Structure formats: C-alpha cells, structure tokens
C-alpha cells in the first residue's frame, strides 16, 4: 500500500473531530485540523504528533464564512485524500423556537455550511478522480421530533445532501460516507444521563469511521442497535407519532 494520504478534519476542536483525527493518525495519515481559532489547538496538534508520529497542521476555518470556503481550500498545503466534516451545533430547542437568529445559526451550522464545503471538495475530488468525503450527520435527522427538530431538520437536509452527492459521484471513483453517531459521550454531553447501551465513546466513533472509509461503507450507525431504534421510530404512523414524546 502507498503512504496514507492526508486527512482533513473540519471541526477539529470537538471531541468527535479529535477522536476521528487520532484514529486516522494512528493509521499513519497526516492530519489537517481545521477549526475556528485553530492556533489554540497547538496542544492537540503536538499530542497527535507525539502519539502517532505523523505530521499535523492547523488551519483557520470558520464554517459559516461561506465566502471564505474556497480560499480556505486553496490555502491547504495539499488537497486532502479524505475530508471528514464534524462541523455542527446542537443549539437549545426551546430557546431556538423563540429566537430565529439562533435557529438560523443552528440550521446553517448543521446543513448549509457542511453541505457547501463538502460540495466544494466534491468538485475538486471529481477533477482529481479520487477522494473520500465523510459527513457526520445524526440520527436526529431520521425523523423530526419536538425535542430537537430544528437541529434534526438541518441534519435531515445534510443526510439527503450526502446521499445525493454519493449518487452523483459513485461512478467517478469518489466515495461518500454518511455517519449517524447516536449518543456519544463527549464533554458536550458530560453530566447527561445517557443510556449506556446506546452511547458510544468518541474513540469508538473514530475507529468506526476509519473502518467505514476503508470498507467503503455508505451509511453507518456507530452502534448497530441505533439502526433498529431508528427503523422503529421511522415506522411509527404519524397519527401515533405526533402524540408521543420520544
């Protein structure tokens, strides 16, 4: 096998982004970490280099700055082999129902921004003829629920976008992976009482994503049980579903 190509992590500050970066670095891939305020990720960068002996570079990236996205890609030291988009914003459903600016921000962060940046990479990968795009979407996008439909609807859009991109690029040698993590034990969810059997550690998520890329999987639920859970949730008749509180 040739030397592993560079992997770009968009949203490299999050626990999930970090875990995915470590998982690819452990396989010998050079890492490009992109995040807002990237300079403050120096400790993470050094840590990754020390642990895995690969080169790790930091890149300033503001996902919501649409105008800057093309320039961001051009400024990368090399067009990556694999792009993982871990950009996202959970928001607060209750507050966001009352604050449209905040709601718009959640929708843009989870759909518009990730979709656009992956779209730009898709075009470049198509020209080059190789590459893998990984979008971290969410089980919340499988069906809109009262508890998180602003976030969920944006993720639904992103899931559909990824599916379309995969369809478009399937015969061009470009692969697209959709990841639906379910619950992940991160600092964002620390203190929440998540059900143990449904919750994945970020490290597990990282390994599953590396595996999915290597095996050219299309859509993965990180814990298989989620596929079943969401199958049931998707198939509850709307007349019943609208009265539930899941």
């Amino acid at each position: 096998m040739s030397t592993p190509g560079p992997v770009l992590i968009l949203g490299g500050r999050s626990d999930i982004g970090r875990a995915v970066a470590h998982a690819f670095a452990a396989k010998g891939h050079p890492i490009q970490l992109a995040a807002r305020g990237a300079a403050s990720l120096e400790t993470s960068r050094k840590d990754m280099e020390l642990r895995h002996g690969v080169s790790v570079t930091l890149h300033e990236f503001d996902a919501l700055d649409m105008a800057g996205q093309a320039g961001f890609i051009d400024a990368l030291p090399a067009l990556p082999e694999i792009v993982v988009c871990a950009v996202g914003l959970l928001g607060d459903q209750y507050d966001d129902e009352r604050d449209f600016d905040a709601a718009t921000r959640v929708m843009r962060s989870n759909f518009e921004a990730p979709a656009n940046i992956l779209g730009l990479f898709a075009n470049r990968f198509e020209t080059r003829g190789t590459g893998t795009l990984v979008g971290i979407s969410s089980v919340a996008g499988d069906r809109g629920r009262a508890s998180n439909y602003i976030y969920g609807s944006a993720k639904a859009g992103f899931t559909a976008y990824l599916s379309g991109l995969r369809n478009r690029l399937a015969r061009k040698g470009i692969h697209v992976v959709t990841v639906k993590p379910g619950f992940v034990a991160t600092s964002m969810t620390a203190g929440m009482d998540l059900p143990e059997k449904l919750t994945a550690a970020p490290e597990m998520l990282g390994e599953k994503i590396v595996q999915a890329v290597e095996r050219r999987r299309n859509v993965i639920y990180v814990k298989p049980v989620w596929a079943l859970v969401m199958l049931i949730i998707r198939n509850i008749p709307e007349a019943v579903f609208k009265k539930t509180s899941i």
Partner: protein
Amino acid sequence: MMLSGWGRFPRIDCQVTRPLTEDALRAQVAKGGLIARGNGRAYGDSALSPGNTVDMRGFRHMLAFDAATGVLTVEAGVLLGDVISAFLPRGWFPPVTPGTKFVTIGGMIAADVHGKNHHKHGSFGQFVDWIDVMGADGAVTRCSRHENPELFGWTLGGMGLTGVILRAAFRLTRVETAWIRQTMIPAPDLDAAMAAFEASGDATYSVAWIDCLRLGDGLGRSLVMLGEHATFAELKLPEKRDPLLAPKRRRLTVPFDLPGFLLNGATLRAFNALYYNQGARNAGESLVDWDSYFYPLDAILGWNRSYGRKGFAQFQCALPLASSRQGLQALLKAIAAAGMGSFLAVLKRFGPQDSRFSFPMEGYTLALDFPVNRGTLALLDRLDRITLDHGGRFYLAKDSRMRAETLRAADPRVAGFLEMRGADARAETFTSAQSKRLTL
C-alpha cells in the same frame, strides 16, 4: 452519580465534574473538598469525594518528548497504556509499571506505584523529574528534587492530598524488543520462594504468585517469575522482523457480576493446585510478549466483576526484611486457616525506598483480594494486626476499610504528612472518602 474504586467497594454517590481547562479546574478547587480521580484503578475510596470528585481524564495531552534523554512530558490524565502504544514502537518503555496499563500518569504519581522491578529500580517516583501541582489557591507550582522539594516529596505517594497533579515529566527506558525473557521457578514453600528472590536480586523483574490457601508443609508455595527485556539477538523469526511489535491479544469481557458463591474455599483451592502444577511443568525460560507479561489481567476487561455485586477488598502490606519471614508465615496461616483468599495473591521483594510517604520499604510485600463480606472484613482486621506486630505498613491505593488508628500505628510518617496538609489550606481543599476515614 454512584462511584467506586476498582474493587467496587465502597460505592458512594459523588458529584463528578470533568474540567477541560485549568480555569475550569481552578473553579472546582475553589469549592474545596476536592479529590482528583484518574481512571478509577485505586481499589477503594482513594479517588472518591462525595461533594467534589474531579475526573482528570480531560487533561489527556502528551506535551513533549526528548528522544535523546527519553523524558516524556504529559498531562496527568494520559493513560499509561497510551504511552506504551505511542512509544514502545519507537523503542521506549515505562521505567516502572503497575499490574495494569489502564492507570493515568497522575494516578501513578499520587500512589507512587511500584512494579516488578522495585527491588532494582525503586518506585515510579524515582523516574519523575518534575510535577506541576495546583494548590488550594488555584496557583500552579512546579516541584522537583531541586525546586519546591518538600511539595515534590509529599506529592509522590500523597494520594492527591497535596493538590491536583496537572502535568509531569518522567523518564522512559530504552528497550530493544517488545518481549520479555521469563524464567519460572517453582518454589514448594515460603522459604524456597524467599530464597529464590534473594538469589535473583540482579534480575530486572521478579514477582511471585503465591498459593495463600495452602497450610502445613506447602505453606507459601509459589511460582517465582523473573523477567528481562529480551534483546534483539534473543528473538527468533518471525518476531525478529518486527521486534517492537507484539501480537494483539484477544480480549475477554466479564459482562455481568458473577454470583459471589462461585469463589469459595473449594474452587479456589482447586484452581490454585491446578495453577501451581501447570506452572511447575513450565519451569524454565520462555519468551512472553510485554502485554501478557506485565498485564495478564488487562486481557479480561471488567475482571473486577468476578467477585460479585458486593465487590472486593484488596489487602497489601509491606514488611521489613528482618521480620518478613515470620510476618508472611503468620499472615499466610491466618488466611489459609480462614479458608478465604484469592487466585490473585502476589508476593514480591522490595528494594530500599527513601521517600516521604510512599508505600514500599525494603523487605517483602504481599497482596491479595477478598470478596467483601463480614467474614473477610474481620479477617482483614486480623491481617492488619499481624502486619503491625511485624513492623509493616499498608498500601493506601489498595485500602478501602482500614482504621485511622491502624494507619497511625503502622506509619510514623503520618505526623509529617498532617503537618504538610495543615499548611496552605490543603487539608480543607483536598479530601477524599479515604482521607476522611483515615483522618489524614
């Protein structure tokens, strides 16, 4: 949340936070009554504080490595296993390792852990160059043998009660391969085991599994295991192709609590007889990969559940050389007579140790665990008594039930530790369920 140490006894409802920055940690320190917790491998209540337990695993970065000297600088929450994964392929190994790799570096310093090479190299603290400690006022102090040596000395083995260990630099050791050349010496009784230890002071690693249920002639029969890092020349094909890479071991998981009655005198006696005879047949030299040699139990994830829902208590004492033989005999007799013991009994020769509050002392150490019930708790009190009578002391990282007066009787260093704790508001700011129980 309900929290316990590795022994799953006691279980205490604790407020747990997981700060990711020094500022967030400082805010927790300001609340007082805090204990830092690593990966929860202390057996008892060392890393439990009902009001303010701080999960340090958010501080998980490796910070620097000097390939010329082997000095590695890490944040306290870095796991020993991650250090091995990162540096063994480059020819470096931890200078001292406990029996599990699932410990944090901060925890290793707080307990000043020892390994199978204690007789030769001392405890982990010997290899620590400096430690950054956050004090009660939230300020971070770097301490070493030259800079703030008092704080450095008391922090090694201080069980997190001198402040929060934030970062440390320690020296890795060079190895040529990932393999250990092991020599197995069957010892039919305690005297033979001790003679084997005394004759193998030059061995890098030495440890014995001891049958603690055997009475009479075979009291203290043991399998003494010596080890050396194998050199490249000592490997054969195919290992020679990738000398620093050992095969990944298969992992088992104990998925649920086994019923406590599975471990009784009869099953343990049968197991021990089988284990001893198997070992005796394999006497002599063999090559063992690092993971199986140092961490046999890490292959069984959640082995602590095998003692049942009530958990278990570890007993580990150190006895001075002069009274070791008598003391060990008395301890083994008491254990065997009670018919309670475990297949995880370990005997080890300690070398000299000169430190403020660390556990080891020159002599012998005996470690074993018991399922928690009224009978074993009474037995443990008897073992405490025997240890005291022979001038021994106890390992706080294993303890979950000792009395405050026992600790004081065993360890005259407590007075100095209390004096240290009295200064700079440490005593109120840093407390654990263990420090309260032992009135430290």
